């Protein structure tokens, strides 16, 4: 397939910025984010939708970007880890991850933060079972998850204090 004939135009918004992409239609969203847009915060862990390291939000829905052909995001709003903090201000989830030790090696962290942000958007005060279920699609090999659960609870408190 030559470059001239194979690529298609895709319009979407990524972290609030309008993007017009010329891409192969079946390219993985993960690769487009990392290689075309240089948003390398989204990580590849397994490439088959098991580990969640590549989690992003598409129109507010948590998805594994390694399983999404880029053609599917026409007109969608994408949010990646790079769009979670605003300027210098970290999101409560990010602050809580630092305070509670929720990040160790950091490779699952972007996906885990996205999943936690999404969980708190859906369920502002999740109980333990909801936290566990909300994060069950994101694998972490370092923490044993305990400090990540603590971070989610802490983020709720931080949100409460700000409200």
């Amino acid at each position: 397939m030559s470059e001239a004939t194979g690529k298609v135009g895709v319009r979407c918004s990524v972290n609030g910025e309008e993007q017009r992409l010329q891409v192969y239609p079946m390219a993985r969203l993960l690769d487009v984010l990392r290689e075309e847009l240089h948003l390398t915060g989204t990580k590849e862990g397994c490439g088959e939708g098991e580990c969640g390291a590549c989690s992003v939000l598409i129109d507010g829905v948590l998805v594994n970007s390694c399983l999404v052909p880029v053609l599917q995001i026409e007109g969608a709003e994408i949010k990646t880890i790079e769009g979670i903090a605003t300027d210098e201000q970290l999101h409560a989830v990010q602050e809580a991850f630092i305070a509670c030790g929720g990040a160790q090696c950091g490779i699952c962290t972007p996906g885990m933060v996205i999943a936690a942000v999404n969980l708190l958007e859906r369920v502002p005060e999740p109980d333990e079972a909801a936290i566990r279920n909300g994060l069950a699609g994101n694998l972490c090999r370092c923490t044993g998850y305990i400090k990540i659960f603590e971070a989610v609870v802490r983020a709720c408190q931080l949100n409460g204090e700000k409200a």
Partner: protein
Amino acid sequence: MTDTLVGKPVPRKEGRRKVTGQSRYIDDMSFPDMLYGATVRSPAPRGRIRNISFTDDSIPWGEFTIVTARDVPGANYVALILNDQPYLAGEFVNHPEEPILLLAHRDKYLLEKARRSVRVEVEPLPALFSLDDSLNKKEIIWGEDNVFKTFHVEKGNVDEVWAKADVVIVEGEYRTGAQEQLYIENNGAIAIANAQEGVTVWGSMQCPYYVHKALLKLFNLPDEKVRVIQMETGGGFGGKEEYPSMIAGHAALLAWKSGKPVKIIYDRAEDMSATTKRHPSLTKHRTAVTRDGKLLGMEIDFVVDGGAYATLSSVVLSRGTIHAAGPYNCPNVRIRSRAVATNVPPHGAFRGFGAPQSIFALERHLNKVAATLGLSAEEFRRRNFIREGETTATGQVIREKVDLGKLLDRAFELTDYHAKLERFAAGNVVSRKKKGIGFATFMHGAGFTGSGEKYLESVVGLEATAEGRVRVLAASTEIGQGTNTVFSQIAAETLGIDYELIEVSQPDTAHVPNSGPTVASRTSMIVGKLVESAALALKQTLVGHSLLSEEYTQEDFRKACAQYIEEHGPLKTFSKYQAPPGIEWDDEKYRGDAYGAFAWAVYVAEVTVDPLTYETRVDDFVAVQEVGRVIHPVLAAGQIEGGVAQAIGYALYEQVVWQDGRMINNQMTNYIMPTAADIPPIRVFFAEQPYAYGPKGAKGIGELPMDGPAPAILNAIENATALSINYIPLLPESLMQEMEVEHV
């Protein structure tokens, strides 16, 4: 300015970068004009390479860089211990993932198509896939007897105990399976290499100087022509101790031949099948005890499956051997151990490094011994715990004030152990699901074994700037465990300056001294101590030049640094490892002080077994340990929790399925690690007893939590079901078989 940084949960140094996605891992880096590299592996577990052909004419082979064993500029082996593993197989292959040929191209999709179309013909030779077949010499595949390494530990005279009157003899056999480290970031490297500039490699790794040493030999270059730089590393657990030397070498070979930067990143399937895993093991115990429950003699035969090449197996075997008799006082001990060859990819380092295998065997076996005597698992251990002044299997006199009985009290109080034993026993009579509680008591030696630290001669440097900032120069890597943070705490507290003023250099062999590998629970205890002494030396330099008095403020320190630099140039101090006094080790007899210090622990697991689904759920987990002074409570607890979770996987979830020497479930879909939904509450408690020769009193911690959970869980399953199961992993399908046999 503060003097109480140690013991405080200061923010992780690189925390902000990690939670915002700004940290740079190897796959986040690229160069213009960069090629991608791929590895063509053996189609057979063992045999002679007959032919390599490039059959698919639709592939523009002329555009590819192709490297085989013939292209190796220096020595074609991965320099480590025995140097028996080639970078690229030339004539023979010894396992089914053995690299034979490397390809590079700028288009990674075309590259993958090309990789699949290379045809390698191998004339097969008989292969061995189990340690049993290797031990039985069904075929000789390595050396004269398939044995990479043997150890023999002898204490007292165990031959005399068996015939004594009134002695009870208990035997048992225990097996553990392979385990994949499963760091979430796969192995990867980028290389630039040419004859003028030498070789530079960036990668995900634990031990930059291991890679450096291997590349020196591979390219036959002098020290200064090889440079290795660690990128942010997404987990290691031992899996990035030795393998990065292989992938870095491959990237560098392709870069050398193509003249372009080359990146190799494994996908998950290749990483799982081709890189190292935990050694499978078989342990046989024969134990003599008096009728009143005192250990009299232990004879232990410990075997690990090393895979096709020697790699680190001898060292893994060593640690497993030394830990095989546990924290118990026994006058007569014989341990014989062997690492044997099979035609599977070489097994390697994984958190615990042989100890989880031999400790699993011992802690299951001691429950059997206790039951045979009619004693509780608890009472039997209490009668045999090692105490200050007593000796381990290698004859090491314990000089720490160890009190395992007290740790056990604490763990039982926290778990309500005794009440639960009774409650579960009563409940299990009427309930379909069976509940159980079990524990393990164990120790883990920190630092390199025996004389290892002396040979390493690790060095750490500290450099101060005119602004009064201080940079730690060490090759010890941050792989998630908190190296940057712990080193900064130690340096800041020793210098009496703010934590924010300390920075830890990116490990780069062109700029940092060799502080040794990031392994063996040695980074905080051994290297941290060097950070402390280099900081003291820095302070003394300023005091010695009359630029600083003994009492000073942070501003005084800044001025002193500025003045020193103006007058004398760069302000750097270095500290080199010195063994604590009284450490003696005999490599020949394998006797003496195996480790500078041990961490001591009691872990308790509570489980529910469902006899309908055969699922085992860990409901609660308590980890009580004495690890010296805790430098960072959150990081330390994080190490324990992560290790326990990994060990729960080892016990109940993670099974490597082999077919003719190849891992066939090399996906996260069918090799199952615990998720957020599977992990019980993990409750971590530290008893702190400062260790005189650790930085601020700290001992090693990282590997300890891998040792205890598996036997504690199997002991709990025995308590729940009365099934004595002596192997891991114990998946539901295995438990089904065990339970059905029961019912027949």
